[in-house]
């Protein structure tokens, strides 16, 4: 345990800066890969080939797109509330970036090893809402405002089931610390929470259905929290132009964009940490395990869920607002509460 940067340079201000910068250095190439994935996977799923011109088979397309966004004119509407309008994209991005502070990359590297990791992620996750409302309201545009309102309604309703999932895992793990949650699951693959967690014996099989349900609940609510299809009603193009970022262009739009992709990684990483053993190897502690392989497993598993999000986006149509609320309040929330109680009960008799 511990942090390899501290081991390397000692516990000083330089080390702290390096630790701050590492996630940022990770986000940029990751965002490029995710954008390329979005373009290419989406194209393949629709029987197209996607971008083919920039670089070999179009692999440089995201770079071109980022450059394009950076050199675009940065427009602020005249009647917009300028300070809020300019601040909003950065707040959204800060919310996404702050979550990286407690996301472990391997057993030797977690930017901040606070023992409230899960709670922290949950707290800064709500940051995005503030940014979105700020942006939507300050734009002085009815579509922006509608999008922002939808976004708030959606994120707040889906935070509750997500919170219940966090609670269930906290109950069974007995901690909110990310590294400890992952450590609990290390060892063979059936120690992962989705396969019933580390406890042995017959009671393990009683746990499995509840964990699977919680897994699905979290997967769905994480989609809603990142405003991804099928829950992209805050930015539903056919209804409200582009929702809360209708008025944004250039660099500030790029910020919103980055935040969305960063958020995708955050929720994927949380799924992996909560249910799929984080950085632990699926082959047990003896094979392909260790701090370096940990990075590979952590990022690899998270990338798989980023892929799943892209996959879902190109498969499913958008939900209606009432369907979204129905699903959130009448299906996911009762289900997650029931699972939470069942798991608490089982954990008690275990």
């Amino acid at each position, binding site marked *: 345990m511990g942090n390899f940067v501290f081991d390397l340079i000692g516990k000083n201000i330089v080390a702290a800066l390096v630790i701050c910068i590492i996630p940022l250095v990770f986000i940029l190439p990751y965002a490029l890969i995710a954008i390329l994935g979005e373009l290419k996977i989406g194209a393949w*799923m629709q*029987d*197209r*080939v996607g971008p*083919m011109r920039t670089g070999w088979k179009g692999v440089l397309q995201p770079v071109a797109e980022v450059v394009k966004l950076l050199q675009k004119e940065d427009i602020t509407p005249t009647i917009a509330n300028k300070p809020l309008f300019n601040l909003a994209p950065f707040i959204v991005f800060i919310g996404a970036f702050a979550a990286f502070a407690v996301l472990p990359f391997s057993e030797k590297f977690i930017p901040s090893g606070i023992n409230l990791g899960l709670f922290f992620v949950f707290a800064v996750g709500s940051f995005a809402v503030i940014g979105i409302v700020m942006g939507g309201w300050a734009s002085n545009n009815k579509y922006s405002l509608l999008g922002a309102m939808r976004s708030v309604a959606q994120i707040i309703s889906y935070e509750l089931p997500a919170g219940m999932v966090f609670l269930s895992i906290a109950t069974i793990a007995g901690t909110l610390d990310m590294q400890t949650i992952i450590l609990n699951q290390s060892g063979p693959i059936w120690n992962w929470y989705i396969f019933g967690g580390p406890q042995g014996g017959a009671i393990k099989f009683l746990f499995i259905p509840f964990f699977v349900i919680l897994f699905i609940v979290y997967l769905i609510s994480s989609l809603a929290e990142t405003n991804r299809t099928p829950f992209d009603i805050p930015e539903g193009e056919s209804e409200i132009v582009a929702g809360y970022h209708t008025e944004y262009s250039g660099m500030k739009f790029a910020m919103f964009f980055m935040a969305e992709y960063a958020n995708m990684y955050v929720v994927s990483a949380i799924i992996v940490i909560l249910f799929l053993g984080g950085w632990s190897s699926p082959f047990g502690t003896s094979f392909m395990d260790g701090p370096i392989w940990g990075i590979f497993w952590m990022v690899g598993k998270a990338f798989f869920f980023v892929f799943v999000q892209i*996959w879902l986006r*190109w*498969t*499913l149509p958008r939900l209606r607002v009432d369907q979204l609320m129905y699903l959130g309040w009448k299906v996911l929330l009762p289900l997650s509460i029931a699972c939470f109680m069942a798991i608490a009960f089982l954990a008690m008799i275990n």
Partner: protein
Amino acid sequence: MNTNKNTEAQRLTFAEKLYLPELAKGMSITFREMFKPKFTRQYPEQRWDPTGSYRGRPVLVLEEGKERCVACGLCSLVCPAMAIEVQAAETENEKERYPEKFEINMLRCIYCGFCEEVCPEEAIVMSKDYELLFSSQKDAIYGKDRLLVPVEQLQDRLDFLKEYK
């Protein structure tokens, strides 16, 4: 009448209401689609070679150094887009005419092929040329210099016309 009985929720089975099996079906379709061969052509490098039945831009047939056209004006008359302008002039031979001026406005042409169909001399035919670009409206009016195409290049179309017209 009990309208409640016919809501969507009551018509669906439990599995359908659960939505997850259906979702899995949909996702398996998109996943399989990902690996299927794609038919997109990388256009400027991979060009499409149309068959004789293709109606590209209309051209005048150039045979043995001169056009077949006898400037009868039928094509100009039939053209629904009024794209063709023909001006006749006499040749040295008696009762024979040739088009002094033959212009097709390619911005108007709709590639219907009526001109080809009506021509008594098979002098105007549709070519395989589908890459038309011009930088101004004036540039879009093709004169005889650009319309005349040697007969050898149009053989596919002429064969097609012989068989099907």
